[in-house]
């Protein structure tokens, strides 16, 4: 949707046009559901996040000022809803506002198995994909949200920063940590053929 089409849609939304609300849902619900599913890791919670996102968006559409696209604005609402729910569900284990301070120890690569040399069919097995999804779900939420938006939904760095209300450097830092953690985990998985429960 180009900028002028979006401006027209926003005007209709702010005028309370029900068909415009339906258009917004039709165009964006699929992406928001995917984000919610990747963040929450289960369909029931993802559906709750989806519904809460659009309820919240409809309630606050009057305050939308087009500083970002509708898409990024919805991602921002959905990310906030998901992170709040994760914090509520796991108040002890989950730190949504994980400190940005670097712990170099956690970043230093320790696995050097070159799984790039494995046959492609080995890398895309269903079991591997399940492991990849588990690995994302087990990232701290602050890293998971950046990784999902940037590397799975393929938003740009600045769109991701906008959606998560982070600086560009914070996005880059968290993305690097997420990627290195996932690389480490996949390297371990491929070097062992599977991952033991003790290492999770």
């Amino acid at each position, binding site marked *: 949707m180009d900028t002028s089409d979006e401006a027209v849609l926003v005007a209709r939304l702010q005028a309370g046009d029900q068909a415009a609300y339906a258009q917004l849902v039709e165009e964006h619900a699929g992406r928001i559901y*995917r984000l919610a599913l990747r963040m929450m890791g289960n369909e029931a919670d993802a559906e709750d996040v*989806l*519904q809460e996102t659009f309820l919240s968006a409809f309630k606050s559409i009057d305050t939308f000022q087009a500083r970002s696209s509708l898409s990024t604005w919805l991602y921002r609402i959905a990310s906030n809803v998901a992170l709040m729910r994760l914090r509520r569900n796991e108040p002890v284990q989950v730190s949504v506002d994980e400190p940005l301070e670097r712990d170099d120890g956690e970043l*230093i690569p320790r696995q*050097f198995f070159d799984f790039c040399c494995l046959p492609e069919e080995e890398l895309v097995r269903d079991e591997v994909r399940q492991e990849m*999804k588990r690995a994302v779900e087990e990232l701290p939420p602050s890293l998971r949200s950046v990784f999902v938006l940037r590397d799975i939904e393929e938003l740009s760095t600045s769109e991701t920063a906008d959606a998560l209300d982070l600086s560009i450097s914070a996005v880059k830092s968290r993305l690097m940590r997420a990627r290195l953690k996932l*690389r480490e985990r996949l390297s371990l998985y491929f070097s062992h053929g599977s991952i033991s429960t003790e290492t999770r």
Partner: protein
Amino acid sequence: MGATGHSHDHDQHDCRRYLDGLSDYVDGTLGEELCRELEAHMAECENCRVVVNTLTKTITLYHQLPSPVMPDTVKERLYTVLDLKPFYHPAASDAQADTDQPG
């Protein structure tokens, strides 16, 4: 990069210097000078080559993950909750529903 048991003739600290730039490097956004330095380093350091290659491959594998599709039942309930039920139309392709599991 902190190799365990791998021998190369320079200090691990040399590898650690490049950690911060790896993500930018695989995105193609690392500055030219740092890029040259890292590539010169990788030419000598097998572990760093493996880390960069597997980091790139990790990102590629995640890009290739099938996207979960919102089931029609979820979409229908969303339209109901939003009081937009008259506008609801099931997506034709969703009849095949996604077999992809959460995540």
